[in-house]
């Protein structure tokens, strides 16, 4: 059981690192889709099937496509030669900060009081999730719906061209 987790974690982390370190933006987005698939695999491994499929549908299906469209819409040239001077001077500090955060988190995790053994998997069924969502979490569900509506309408407003005179941007 541990070997499967280690394989999933290694694949996810390696693709995430490659995506964050890569030069080509399109490759980064596709590698991140692989990384999100690894996270979905972790959810499946942990017994949360519904969340795993939600992750696949939303992240790999929707968010990666939206990001790909944003990449293609904001692309300047084929070779994507970005001047990386500012980013190069900032990179060592970013790596130091990331390593420090990872060290602190891993130190806390290593000191975690060990639970005696893995408890039996909770009986997670879609029916139970639906009952919880419609019962105790119904107000939160409504708020999330309102949030998604407002956010998507706001995204359309932000990204739309609102120049009635017609400009060079509209085509």
């Amino acid at each position, binding site marked *: 059981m541990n070997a499967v987790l280690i394989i999933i974690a290694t694949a996810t982390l390696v693709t995430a690192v490659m995506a964050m370190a890569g030069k080509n933006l399109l490759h980064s987005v596709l590698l991140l889709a692989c990384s999100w698939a690894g996270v979905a695999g972790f959810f499946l491994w942990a017994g949360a099937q519904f969340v795993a499929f939600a992750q696949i549908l939303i992240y790999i299906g929707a968010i990666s496509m939206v990001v790909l469209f944003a990449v293609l819409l904001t692309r300047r040239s084929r070779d994507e030669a970005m001047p990386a001077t500012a*980013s190069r001077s*900032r990179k060592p500090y*970013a790596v130091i*900060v990331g390593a420090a955060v990872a060290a602190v988190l891993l130190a806390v995790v290593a000191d975690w009081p*060990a639970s005696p053994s893995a408890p039996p998997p909770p009986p997670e069924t879609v029916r139970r999730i639906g009952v919880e969502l419609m019962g105790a979490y119904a107000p939160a569900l409504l708020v999330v719906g309102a949030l998604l509506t407002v956010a998507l309408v706001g995204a359309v407003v932000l990204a739309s061209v609102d120049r009635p005179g017609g400009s060079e941007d509209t085509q």
Partner: protein
Amino acid sequence: MTHLQLCLAFSSLLFAVGLTGALARSNSILVLLGLELMLNAANLNFIAFWRFGPPGGPATGVVFVLFSIAVAAAEAAVGLALIISIYRHQKNIRLPDARRLKG
């Protein structure tokens, strides 16, 4: 190491990777993707504690992750719309050039 510790170490490393990417890159799309990685690491923690932590509600962790994914999707949509808007004004999406967002 127990299962919970392995899961927490995994999510810590994923969070650190996302944080490093968000801090190091100057392309705003990659910064947004680093943020998404950090959110994913938080979701991993929710599921890990739900599965291996002290017993709580029957589906609490799953419901939390569902809400978190919804908020992350909203954030990605708004962030990419902002990036497209910035590109329309500045003709590139590098963060150091986007100091001025007015008009």
